[in-house]
C-alpha cells in the first residue's frame, strides 16, 4: 500500500541518517580519547613541571586531532547543509579541544588563542566546515576555569609573578566577553562563572602582594604600566 511504501522510504532515510550519526560519534569518541591524553599531559603543569616539557608532550596530539576533524568534515560533506543537524554530536568534544589548545597557547605566549588560530591548528579553515563561534567561546571559558588552580600552584612553587600576569590576562578577557550580548544559555552561564575565576586570581595576587613577595622591579613597573 502507499502507506507501506511511504514507511519503507522513511526506514531507509532514518537508517541512513542513523548510520551517519554513528560514524560521527565514533570519530567524536576518538577525539575525546585524544583530548584525554592531552589533558593528562597538561595536568603536570600543576606540579610545576617545566612548561616547555609539558607542552611538547601535549602538542604531539594536535596532528591526530586535525586528522579526526578532517574525518568529521568529510562525513558532513555527504549531507550538505545539515552541519547543524549533527553538530550536537561533536560539539562538547570540540569545546574541550579549544580549551586545551587555548591553555597551551597561553602558557606558551601569554596571549589568547584567537578563533582563526584555533581553526588553523585544527585545519577547520575551509568554507563549509568551520569552528562554531559559540563552541570557541565556551572552550575559552573552560580554559579560564583552569587558571585559578594554576596560579595557586605556581605561587606554592615559588613563582610570585604569575598572579599579576594572570590577573591582567583574565581582566582583559572578561572585559572582551562583556561586550557580547549573550542569551540566557549555556555560554552565558559559563561566562558568569569567569567572574569567579577572576575574583579568585585577584585574591591570590592580593595574598602575594600584601606579603611583599612580588619582585621589586615589577612593583615599580606596576605603578607606571597598568596598561
Amino acid at each position, binding site marked *: 500500500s502507499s502507506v507501506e511504501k511511504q514507511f519503507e522510504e522513511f526506514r531507509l532515510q532514518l537508517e541512513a541518517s542513523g548510520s551517519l550519526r554513528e560514524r560521527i560519534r565514533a570519530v567524536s569518541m576518538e577525539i575525546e580519547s585524544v583530548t584525554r591524553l592531552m*589533558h593528562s599531559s597538561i595536568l603536570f603543569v600543576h606540579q610545576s613541571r617545566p612548561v616547555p616539557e609539558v607542552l611538547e608532550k601535549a602538542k604531539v596530539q594536535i596532528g591526530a586531532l586535525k586528522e579526526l576533524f578532517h574525518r568529521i568534515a568529510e562525513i558532513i560533506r555527504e549531507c550538505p547543509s545539515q552541519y547543524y543537524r549533527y553538530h550536537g554530536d561533536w560539539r562538547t568534544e570540540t569545546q574541550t579541544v579549544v580549551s586545551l589548545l587555548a591553555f597551551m597557547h597561553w602558557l606558551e605566549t601569554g596571549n589568547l588563542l584567537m578563533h582563526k588560530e584555533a581553526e588553523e591548528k585544527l585545519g577547520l579553515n575551509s568554507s563549509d566546515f568551520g569552528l562554531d563561534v559559540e563552541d570557541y567561546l565556551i572552550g575559552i571559558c573552560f580554559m579560564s576555569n583552569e587558571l585559578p588552580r594554576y596560579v*595557586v600552584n605556581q*605561587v606554592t612553587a615559588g613563582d610570585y609573578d604569575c598572579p599579576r600576569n594572570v590577573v591582567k590576562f583574565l581582566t582583559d578577557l572578561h572585559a572582551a566577553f562583556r561586550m557580547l550580548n549573550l542569551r540566557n544559555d549555556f555560554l552565558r552561564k559559563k561566562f558568569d562563572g569567569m567572574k569567579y575565576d577572576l575574583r579568585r586570581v585577584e585574591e591570590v595576587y592580593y595574598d602575594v602582594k600584601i606579603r611583599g*613577595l612580588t619582585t621589586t622591579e615589577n612593583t615599580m613597573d606596576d605603578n607606571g604600566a597598568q596598561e
Partner: protein
Amino acid sequence: NSAKKPRKMSTSSAMKEGFVKYAQYLNEFNDKRERVVKASRDITINSKKVIFQVHRISKDNKEEVLEKAEKDLAAVTDQYMSRLVKELQGTDFWKLRRAYSPGVQEYVEAATLCKFCKTGKLLNLAEINANLLPLSDPSQEPLQINVLDYLLGLADLTGELMRLAIGRISDGELDYAEKICSFVREIYRELTLLVPNMDDNAEMKKKMETMLQSVVKIENACFSVHVRGSEYVPLLGSSDPGYSFLGVPDVEL
C-alpha cells in the same frame, strides 16, 4: 486455541515441578545474597571505623594511632572479609558484585589509607588480593577484588586524604600535606585516563568531580600555608630561635 484437557493436567504439574526448582534456586541464591549484603555492611561499618581511627592521628601519636588502625584493619580482614570470601569462593563474583561492592570499596579505602599513612605509598590491588588469598580454601577459585571496585575505593580515598591533609596542616605538618597533595594529584591524573574505560562509569564520573574538589582543597590549603610561611623568612634567627611552630623542623628555620 487448541489446548486440550489432558495435556493441561500434565502441564499444571510440570509447571509446579519447574517452579519448585526455580523457587529453590531463588531461595538459595537470595539467602546467599542476603548473607553477602550483611557481610558487606559489616565490612563497611568496620572499615569506616578504621578510617575514623586514622583521622585521630596527630603530630605526636602517629605510631600509636596507626598501629591501632592497622590492628583494626587486620581484624576487619580476618573477621569480615573472610566471611565474604567464604561466601563467594568459587563463583558468582560478578553476579553478586552489587551486593558486596560497597563493602569492598570501603575496605579498599581503609586499607590504602593505612598503607599510605604508614609508608606514603599506594597499596596495589595485587597486594590486597595477595593478602586475601590465605583466607580462602585453596581448592576453590579464590575471591579477588576486581579492578572496578579497587578504583572506586581509590576515588573515595582521596576524600579521606583531603581531610587528612587539612588536619596535618593544622598540626603543622606541611611536608606531610604536600606529600598527600602530590600523591592525590597523581592518582587523579591516572584515573582521568581510566574512567572512560570502566564498566559502568556513571558512579566513577561523579566521584571524579568530588575528587577534583578534594585536590583543589588540598592545593589551596598548601598555598595558604606556603604564602604565610614565606613571611616568616625575614624574621629568621631574630626573635624566636627555637621556634618550631607549624612543625617545620628547627634546623630548617
